[in-house]
């Protein structure tokens, strides 16, 4: 068995202002190429805004925050992609929760990368402004890993 040491963590967050277009990509290097990394768990959530009431379709994931874990090899080989759950409103807590922060454990031996690790978080924008459809889009992602 390989030896891994105590867990470390990295928090990645960003808020994208309302009234913008396109997507915002946030990239972080957890460990450079050639480094062995073991991912133990991660958690995250995103916020949405009222615009989703008009700009969504059944199979549309473009309004969601996408997180990609990838190696740091030249082609940045994807290990895992995951859509972050979003925090709908305070009502969700009042009614027992239908969203919010999700914690994802990687049980058993963990997830290994022998070629370093990077995280790329892609956040959609809300092009709308105003009280009816405005609102920023925020996202946070916490990664727990060992080197």
């Amino acid at each position, binding site marked *: 068995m390989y030896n891994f040491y105590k867990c470390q963590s990295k928090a990645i967050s960003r808020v994208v202002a309302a009234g913008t277009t396109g997507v915002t990509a946030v990239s972080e290097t957890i460990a450079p190429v050639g480094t062995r990394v073991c991912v133990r768990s991660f958690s995250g959530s995103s916020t949405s805004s009222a615009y989703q009431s008009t700009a969504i379709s*059944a199979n549309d994931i473009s309004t969601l925050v996408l997180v990609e874990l990838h190696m740091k090899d030249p082609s940045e080989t994807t290990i*895992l992609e995951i*859509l972050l759950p979003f925090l709908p409103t305070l009502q969700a807590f009042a009614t027992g929760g*239908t969203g919010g922060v999700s914690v994802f454990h990687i*049980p058993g031996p963990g997830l290994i990368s022998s070629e370093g690790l990077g995280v790329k978080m892609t956040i959609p924008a809300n092009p709308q402004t105003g009280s009816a459809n405005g609102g920023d889009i925020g996202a946070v992602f916490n990664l727990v890993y060992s080197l």
Partner: protein
Amino acid sequence: MNNDYCKFWYTKTPYDVNGSSTPVSGVQIISGRTRVHALWIMNRYLNASTASTLTRPVSLLDSSGGNVLYKCAFINPTGGSDVNPNQYPLTSYSNYFGGNGILFEDGVWFGVDAEDQSGSIASNSKTAMYAAVIYSGGANT
């Protein structure tokens, strides 16, 4: 020893999970001797009239139409009374298996029941926004 470490099968494409008739035969997602450690399903509730969530129980089988080694159902938002009707939460539910995981001797098949817990066979009741299986051993098909 790398096989001791977890691998993922996942899809971020809205996943229509084989709504075949009962018993489900499943779709093979992993080949070879496999230990399954966890299952993630993420659903999305669109609005009161166009629900598009996976409401049917999900099974992991040891062969096509074979033994169901794990089966579970997911609690989903049920409508506008539970959430802000102008917003549509993505929900995430996870199932983790302890120890060394569940042994599948020759591959893993992913299937859903022919109907949901209310008896509905609505086609959109078998669509997950995202699905992932964490495993060691085997390989994605």
